[in-house]
């Protein structure tokens, strides 16, 4: 019905929105923050002034100065460099977690939702089993079993995140499955595989994407928790969570040791949350933030004036 208002001219109608854009100020700022983080961590080897593991025992627990931007830790290692390298570990690990959960969870959810019956019951009960454990505890158990290192932490957390993603995908699939275009595909003789992956999946992907953006944030936090407890990244490797833990002993002497990694974690997670929110608002037409009339007219009239002047 909405398209009835817009007119059905056979000529090309611009798909770009005039209002309700993705990059509202909040989203733009958070996106910029994320870009900066990604950039600096990616180029850590270039930007870091020192080797993150290089110890300078004469300069332990130093306060920020021209030589050490954030100061040094208890072993004289440059905090700034450690933050940069730690960020690289944190971000790549978080992406790894999300990637694993996506590769396993999304296809499982699609098959479970589409096929129904025994396959659905089996997959859902497996998910129930995984979900019955508190997620972090389950990760601990897995890491303890597999061995304490970054890779195993990522693997364990990835498995822990699978059930939620499977459930989400399954419910989206159930909704799409009953739509007419799926019946049309069946009547056109398309194989199940084609229907699931080429037709249903693209229609689910936007909601999954929003969830994944949030999951990256959760993964950063959970990985930090794991490292904090000694189950993830092992010393001397730089990692935000581990740094948080190591800095605890020195809170009264040099609080920056814990504060700075903590602050960086908070900033990253908040930025991811805001970006995810903005993405969700943009994709869901009911929630799109539209400008008021006065604001739109001011902008539009201003644009028109500029066009006629220039």
């Amino acid at each position: 019905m909405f398209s009835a208002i817009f007119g059905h001219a056979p000529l090309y109608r611009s798909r770009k929105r005039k209002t309700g854009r993705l990059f509202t100020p909040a989203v733009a700022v958070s996106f910029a923050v994320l870009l900066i983080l990604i950039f600096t961590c990616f180029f850590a080897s270039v930007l870091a002034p020192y080797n993150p593991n290089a110890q300078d025992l004469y300069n332990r627990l130093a306060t920020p100065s021209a030589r050490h931007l954030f100061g040094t830790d208890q072993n004289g290692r440059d905090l700034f460099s450690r933050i940069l390298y730690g960020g690289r570990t944190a971000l790549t690990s978080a992406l790894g977690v999300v990637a694993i959960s996506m590769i396993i969870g999304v296809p499982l959810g699609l098959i479970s939702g589409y096929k129904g019956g025994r396959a659905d019951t089996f997959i859902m009960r497996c998910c129930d089993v995984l979900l019955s454990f508190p997620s972090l505890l389950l990760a601990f158990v897995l890491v303890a079993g597999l061995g304490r290192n970054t890779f195993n932490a990522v693997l364990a957390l990835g498995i822990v995140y699978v059930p939620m993603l499977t459930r989400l995908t399954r419910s989206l699939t159930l909704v799409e499955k009953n739509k007419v275009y799926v019946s049309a595909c069946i009547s056109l003789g398309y194989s199940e595989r084609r229907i699931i992956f080429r037709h249903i999946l693209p229609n689910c992907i936007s909601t999954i994407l929003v969830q994944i953006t949030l999951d990256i944030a959760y993964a950063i936090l959970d990985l930090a928790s794991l490292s904090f407890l000694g189950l993830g990244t092992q010393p001397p490797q730089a990692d935000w969570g581990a740094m948080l833990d190591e800095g605890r002993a020195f809170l009264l002497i040099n609080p920056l040791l814990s504060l700075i990694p903590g602050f960086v974690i908070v900033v990253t997670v908040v930025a991811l949350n805001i970006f995810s929110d903005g993405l969700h608002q943009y994709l869901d037409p009911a929630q799109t933030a539209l400008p008021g009339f006065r604001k739109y007219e001011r902008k539009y009239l201003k644009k028109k004036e500029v066009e006629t002047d220039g």
Partner: protein
Amino acid sequence: MNTPVIQTEKLVKEFPIASKALREKKKLLHAVNDVSISVPKGGIFGVVGESGCGKSTLGRCLLRLETITGGSVRFQGRDITALSGKNLLPLRRKMQMIFQNPYSSFNPKQKIGSALAEVCKVHKIPQAQENISQLLSDINLTEDVLHRAPGELSGGQLQRLAIARALLLAPDFIVADEPVSALDVSVQAQILNLLLDLREKFSLTMLFISHEMTVVRHLCDTVAVMYLGTVVEQAETDELFRNLLHPYTQTLLSAVPSMDPERKKQRIILKGDPPSAIDMPAGCPFSGRCPRYQPLCSGSRPPLRDVGNGHLVACHLV
């Protein structure tokens, strides 16, 4: 060749209803009850009835989009009732469906051109581009619609594309499930004209399902009226509308609001609501609401009899 394109014999389709209590006996929704129809080649067979009468389910059963509970379906003489899985695939190419809501018949994230090309790819139709171009001109649309997503086109354009998509496979039989019900009146007229044109050009055989008597009257050669899963009356269109025999058909036609305000209508207003298809009444399905009800109507189901001129009626009182 006088074999009808599609033929059903005492077709039955029941859906199990999930029972709420554990011990409760499983209930069945009797969607289609003992329907036997036969569609000749080149004909447009109309099925008309209100919601819940089973006409859509009948269409889906003919296309084997549903499993058949009882009876048989024959396509070009061949029994297709029990086919499943891979065996159905070659059949799909020969029978196609046009759905009611054009907007939901297409994948909203797929461009039209891609959707049409996919059909050709899956069924290995040669010279896809030429076929598509030719069909586009048959349905009076320009090639730029190929680059649009379904949301950018109007209902009328999309329904035409749905028809083109069905025709790409050159099927022998098309089921049109209320193809114009979701469209505006002026667009409806365009689509009906298009169907008439295409019928001539491609000698289509079609099952046209609708709830509107006026549309069915305009388009179809033969009409079957359904109520609660059974065919209550069936005849050639002119014969049917000249001579309405079954009380339900008479009610249905009288209930259609007339454009002529001067005509004082003797409208038959039915009391109450249709009975549920789960607990079917004994005897004639229409017995609960029939204005000409007699006690014998609740006794046994009236069979569909030929009363002359190929006019079939299922009523004890006719």
